[in-house]
């Protein structure tokens, strides 16, 4: 197999230009999809049989929560690639994942809390799902704090990569917490291999919203990655060349 294109893309200058070009596409397509899905979810989709209009917050809560797990897995994989193959760009990707991931986790926790108050009768419960998602939030914060505590980028990369890899153990715990233990939180609605437990008249805006969130994260990752590359390569000649163009 020919890996030339991969090595080319993995070099900071081409990754920088690639992220710069990709970003507006991801951003604008995701904004359009988000607006459509928000309109459908808020005004068009019928209310739920027992939660009435309150269930509509699921159109933000489910995408944020599922993406918070996906982003952490991606961060851990990128960090592992960075450690094993000594690939600086992979470390940069991992570093750029942390802030959007933390924001998504916070969004999932906040929307869940707003949803829980009227439906369950409590803002917060120390059940397994909520607690493990809170731990996920602290893992993101810890990762960012650890990175910030090193002056040397190479050492920050290696130390924070270990934290990211260790923390990935929490991802299946969040995912299966509602299966393994009695919890206040309900079980999984969406299912990749089985049948989803949301009526077909409600599910399309949710899936579109999840895709929109994913693309929005992609746009944020492009920005974060470019910032990381600039920080690492600030004295490189290709940047002066790029600026001159």
């Amino acid at each position: 197999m020919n890996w030339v294109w991969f090595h080319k893309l993995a070099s900071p200058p081409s990754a920088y230009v690639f992220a710069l070009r990709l970003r507006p596409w991801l951003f604008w397509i995701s904004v359009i999809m988000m607006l459509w899905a928000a309109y459908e979810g808020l005004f068009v989709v019928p209310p739920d049989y027992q939660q009435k209009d309150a269930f509509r917050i699921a159109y933000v809560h489910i995408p944020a929560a599922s993406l918070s797990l996906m982003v952490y897995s991606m961060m851990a994989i990128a960090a592992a690639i960075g450690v094993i193959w000594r690939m600086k760009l992979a470390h940069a990707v991992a570093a750029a994942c942390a802030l959007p991931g933390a924001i998504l986790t916070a969004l999932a926790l906040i929307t869940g809390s707003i949803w829980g108050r009227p439906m369950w009768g409590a803002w917060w419960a120390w059940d397994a799902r909520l607690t493990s998602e809170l731990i996920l939030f602290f893992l993101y914060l810890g990762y960012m704090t650890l990175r910030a505590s090193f002056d040397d980028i190479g050492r920050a990369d290696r130390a924070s990569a270990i934290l990211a890899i260790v923390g990935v153990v929490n991802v299946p715990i969040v995912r299966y917490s509602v299966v393994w233990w009695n919890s206040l939180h309900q079980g999984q609605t969406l299912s990749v291999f089985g049948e989803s437990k949301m009526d077909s008249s409600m599910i399309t805006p949710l899936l579109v919203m999840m895709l929109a969130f994913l693309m929005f994260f992609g746009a944020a990752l492009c920005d974060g990655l470019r910032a990381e590359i600039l920080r690492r390569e600030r004295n490189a000649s290709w940047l002066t060349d790029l600026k001159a163009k």
Partner: protein
Amino acid sequence: MTPRRRRMMFVVLILLAVAGATMLLLTALKQNLQYSVVPSDVYTGKAPLDRVFRLGGMVEQGSVKREPGSMLVQFDVTDYSHEVTVQYSGVLPDLFREGQGVVVRGKLQPSVDGHQLLIAEEVLAKHDEKYMPPDVAAGLKKAHDARRSAAEAPTSSASPSTSVTHH
């Protein structure tokens, strides 16, 4: 062993060690990680008698009694094998109703002739992971009721087809 292979082994070993340690920890804490116990646990002595705990189950159909002129409400929480009577004074969540899942936090009272009574400090409502419009839910309920009444009133015409499955 090349340095790259060594680093790969290092990452894999870290992951295995942490996953193993976490698994042991979670297994050891299995009981403590449960958010609530079920009514059957109360009768088998798995629920604490002297302190506050959480009990989860369904509100028994037809069991909700309200005291007129006060906030006091009494209902039975069941897991379809045992039930515990719950007394609560306060505001109930919107989703609270008969047949709904609830988690109540409170303390057991000394039982009178084997019947368990719990004075609740907090009542939370549970909801499931299914979302559907009211008309779909009504249709499902109608089909379910029709199937149930058909099963409860066995007719001679239905029996030959069911006996086939035994062969």
